[in-house]
C-alpha cells in the first residue's frame, strides 16, 4: 500500500517536470533560426503561393504560444501530430522503436551479464595481475570515442568483406528462411553491438569493482569474516548485496538510454533506428517529430528513475522502513 502511494506521488511529481521540459524544448526549437522552408525558398521553381500555402500548412504563420498550445492540446489527447511531410509521427516512431530496442536490449543484456561478474572478479582479485590487466583494458574501452571505433570497424568491414557495411537486413531478407533471417540479423548487428558493448562494458565493470571494494573494506564485512563465516557467504550474501545498490540506480539510467543511448553509433552504421530519424528531424526543425522524441526521452528518464527507486525499496530494507 505504501509503495503504491509512493509511486502515485512520484508520478504526480513528474507532471510539472514534463510540462517544463516541453515548454523549454518547444521554445528553443522554434526560436532557433532554423527555417523548415529554407530549402523551398531557394528553389527557383517554387512560387510565392506555394510558399504561403506551406507556411499555413505547417502553422508557421501563428505566434509561438499558439503553436505550443495547439501541440500541447493534441499531445495530451495522445495525438502526436504529423511530420512536416505529412506522415503520422506515431507511425514513424513505431517503425524505428523496435530496431533501436533490438540493439540496445542486446547491448545492455550483454554488458550486465559480462560486466558485473568481471567487476566482482576484479574486486576479489584486487591488485593481482588479473585486476591490473582488466584496469588497462577497461581504460582503453572508456578512452575510445564510440564514433571513431565505429568508423574503424566499418573500414575493417569494407576491407575484409566479412561484415556488411551498415544497415540491418540484406536486400533479399524476405526470401530467407527463419534461421537465415536470424543469422542475417546477427551478421548485421555484430559490429554495432561490439562498439556499444565495448564502451559501456568498461564503465560498468569499473563501477562494480569500486562498489565492491568499498563494501569489502567496511566494518560489517570485517565483522562477518571475524565471526568465521565462509568467504562465499561473506561476499555473496553480505558484501555483494550492499554493493549492488548503486548499480540499480545505474540500471535506471540505462533504461532511459534504451531509446536514445545509441544515436551516434546508429548514425555511423546507418542503423535504421531512432537516432537517424531524430537527427534529420532536428536539422529540418520538424517540430512534431522532435517534440515527440524529446518527450519520449524525458518520460523514459523519469520512468527509469522510478523503476530504480522501486527496485531499491525491494532490495534495501533500510529505505523501505523509512
Amino acid at each position, binding site marked *: 500500500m505504501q509503495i503504491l502511494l509512493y509511486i502515485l506521488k512520484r508520478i504526480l511529481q513528474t507532471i510539472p517536470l514534463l510540462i517544463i521540459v516541453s515548454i523549454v524544448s518547444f521554445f528553443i526549437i522554434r526560436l532557433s*533560426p*532554423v*527555417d523548415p522552408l*529554407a530549402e*523551398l*525558398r*531557394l*528553389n*527557383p*521553381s*517554387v*512560387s*510565392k*503561393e*506555394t*510558399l504561403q*500555402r506551406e507556411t499555413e500548412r505547417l502553422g508557421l504563420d501563428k505566434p509561438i504560444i499558439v503553436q505550443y498550445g495547439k501541440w500541447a492540446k493534441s499531445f495530451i489527447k495522445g495525438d502526436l501530430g*504529423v*511530420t512536416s*511531410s*505529412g*506522415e*503520422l509521427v506515431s*507511425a*514513424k516512431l513505431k*517503425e*524505428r522503436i523496435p530496431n533501436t530496442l533490438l540493439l540496445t536490449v542486446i547491448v545492455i543484456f550483454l554488458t550486465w551479464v559480462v560486466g558485473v561478474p568481471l567487476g566482482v572478479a576484479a574486486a576479489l582479485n584486487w591488485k593481482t595481475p588479473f585486476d591490473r590487466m582488466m584496469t588497462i583494458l577497461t581504460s582503453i574501452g572508456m578512452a575510445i570515442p564510440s564514433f571513431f571505433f565505429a568508423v574503424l570497424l*566499418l*573500414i575493417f*568491414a*569494407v576491407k575484409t*568483406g566479412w561484415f*556488411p*557495411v*551498415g*544497415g*540491418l*537486413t540484406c*536486400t533479399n531478407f*524476405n526470401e530467407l528462411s527463419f534461421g537465415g533471417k536470424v543469422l542475417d540479423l546477427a551478421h548485421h548487428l555484430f559490429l554495432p553491438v561490439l562498439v556499444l558493448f565495448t564502451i559501456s562494458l568498461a564503465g560498468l565493470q569499473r563501477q562494480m569493482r569500486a562498489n565492491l571494494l568499498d563494501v569489502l573494506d567496511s566494518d560489517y564485512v570485517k565483522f562477518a569474516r571475524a565471526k568465521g563465516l565462509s568467504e562465499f557467504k561473506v561476499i555473496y550474501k553480505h558484501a555483494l548485496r550492499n554493493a549492488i545498490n548503486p548499480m540499480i540506480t545505474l540500471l535506471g539510467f540505462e533504461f532511459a538510454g534504451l531509446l536514445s543511448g545509441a544515436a551516434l553509433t546508429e*548514425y555511423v552504421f*546507418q542503423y*535504421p*533506428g531512432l537516432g*537517424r*530519424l531524430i537527427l*534529420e528531424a532536428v536539422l529540418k526543425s520538424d517540430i512534431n517529430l522532435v517534440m515527440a522524441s524529446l518527450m519520449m526521452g524525458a518520460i523514459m528518464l523519469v520512468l527509469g528513475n522510478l523503476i530504480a527507486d522501486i527496485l531499491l525499496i525491494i532490495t534495501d530494507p533500510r529505505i523501505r522502513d523509512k
Partner: protein
Amino acid sequence: MKRIIFGLIILFLLIWGLKSCLHADIPETEQPPVSVIDETHQIIPPPPQKNVTIDGVDYLQSQAPVGKFGGTFIASTIGEGPKTFNPFNSRDNISSLMSDIMYDGLLTTNPYTGEVIPKLAKSFEVNGSEYIIELRRGLKWSDGKPITADDVVFTWRDIVFAGVGNTSVRDSIVIDGELPTVAKIDDYTVKFTTPKPFAPFLRMLSNPIAPKHVFEAAVKKGNAYFDTFLSTNADPKTFVTSGAFRIQEYIPAQRVTFVRNPDYYVINTKDEKLPYLDKLVYLIVGDLNNEVLKFEAKELDIIGLQGANVARFKTLEPHSDFTVYNLGPNTGTMYLTMNLNNRKNEDGKFYVEPKKQIWFRNRNFRRAVDYAIDRDNMVFNIANGLGEPLFTAESLNSIFLNKNLKPYHKDLAKSRELLKQEGFYWDKKDRLFDKYNNRVEFDLYTNAGNTEREAIGVMVKQDLEDLGMKVNFKPVEFNSLVNKLANTLDWDMVIMGLTGSPLEPNSGKNVWHSRGTLHMFNQRLEKDKKDDRFDWEKRLDEIYDKGALAIDFNERKKYYDEYQQIAYDEKPFIYIYSPIVITAIRDKFKNVFPTTLGGATHNIEEIYIDKEGRK
C-alpha cells in the same frame, strides 16, 4: 638554464608549426589531380524508340541491343528516404524519384537531345495554345484496368488544376491568373487549351498520370486525407501503377524495392516486354561516405562520385569491375552576387549602406570584381579539376545556352582600369578607395558547412584583396543566410548556388523577373511598390514575359540568348563554375547510355545484366 632552453625550443616549434598552418590554408597544386575529363567513354546512343502496334496495342519499341532477362540493380539515395509515394504529394527529390519510377507521364524528355517525346501518349500536336494528345491503345494499369482519356482528364482537372496535394505544378502554369483547361475528345484523345500560347506548358505534360478509379475516392475525401494517401505506410499491394517498375516493399531507413511490371508497354526488337531487370532496389544511406563504402563493399551497383573520390576510383577502375562515366557539367550554377538594393526597410534605414550602394550599383565595379576572380584556379583547387568555369546564366548543359558568350581568364590589369575609370584610387599601401575617399570594405557571406562554397569564399577574398579591397568573409548558418537573402536583405556580397532546368529557362523566372521571389541581387519585397528598375531589369522582365508566350524554339532561343547576354554584360550574378557529374557503374550492366540530361539510369527498362562480357 635548462628550462630556458627547453622553453625556447618549444616556442620555436610553436612558431614553426603556426607558420606552416598559415600557408596550408589553400594548397596550391601545380599538376591537375587527375585527368578524368579528357578521357571519356564513348557513348553511342541507340536509335530513337519507335511506335509499334501489335494486336491492337500501341507499344513503344526500344532500339537498343537485345539483352537477357533477370537480375537486380541496386542504387542508393542519400538522406532519410522517401516521404511519400504519391506523385502529387512529393515535395522532395527522393519522393519524386520514387513516384516517377512507378507512374509514367504523357510526354517525356529525350535524354539525348532534350526534345519532348511521347511516353504514355502515342503522339502529340501543338497548335498555338491547343495541345492535342493521342493516347496509346490497349495500355493497362497494373490492376488490369485500361488507361484512357478519363484518367488523363481526371489527373489534370481534379488533381493538378484543382490544387490538390503539392501545388507547385499548378502554380507554375497559371498564366495571367488563369489556368489551362483539359477536355476529353474521345476515349483515347484529350485536348489541353492554355489561355494564351505558353511554351513551358508542353514540358509540364510529363507530369505523372494517376489511375482515376484509385485516386478519385481519395481526392473526394479532401486535402488532409490526400496528404496521407499512398504515404510510406501504405500497403505496397494497393498501388496501381503504369511505370516500368512497381513497389514491392519499403523498409524505413533501409531500402525501397521495386519489381518489374510484367505488362509494360516498352518492348525490344524481338517484341519481348521490357524491363529486363527483375528488381530495382534503392538503398537509403545516410551520407556520402557510407555510400562510397557500400559501393566498395559491392553492396551498390552505381554511385555518384565527388571530389577526391573521383581520382581514387579512376585509379581503381582498370582493375575493378566498374566503369567511371563523365556526364558533363551539372545543372547547378554557383555564383557570387552583390546587393544592388537601394531601398529602405520599414524603419527607414537603408538595407545596404549608401556608400556601398554606389559601388555595387556601378556596372564597372561589378565587372572589375568579375575580372579579378580566378575561376581556373578554383576549378583546379576546389573542384579537383572536375568543373567547368561558368560565365552564363544558363547552365552549361542547357539546350538554350548562348554559345556566343566567350569565357575569359583572370585579368587584374583590366579590373584596375575599370576601377580607375570610375574614380577609384589606391593609396601607398595599395588599399582601394572610392572617389569620395571611402575605403572599399564589405562583408562576403556564404552558408557555413558547405565546404565547397567556403573554399570558394576564401579564394574570392584573396582575389579581391589583390585589388586592394577589404573583404570580411563570414560563413553563416544556412537558415540565417536564407533569411538575410529573402527577408532582412542586409548583406553586401554572397556566394550561393541555384539549380536550374537545362530544358526550360522559364523555371528561372523567380530569379530574373524584377518581382520574383529569388531576384536576390535586387530583391523587392511586397511593400516595395515603386518602379525603380534598371533599364536592363526592365528588358529582362519583357524577355521573360515574351519568352514564355513564344512557342517556336528558335524564337524563344532568341529571347533567352538576349537574357544571357544581359546577364553576361551587367554581371548581377558573377558565375564561378559548374561541377562535373561523375558516375561509376558496374560493368556487368549493359545498355548503359549515361547522358548529361537524363543521368545514368534514364533507360532503366533497357538495362540488362551480362556477367560474362567485361569492359
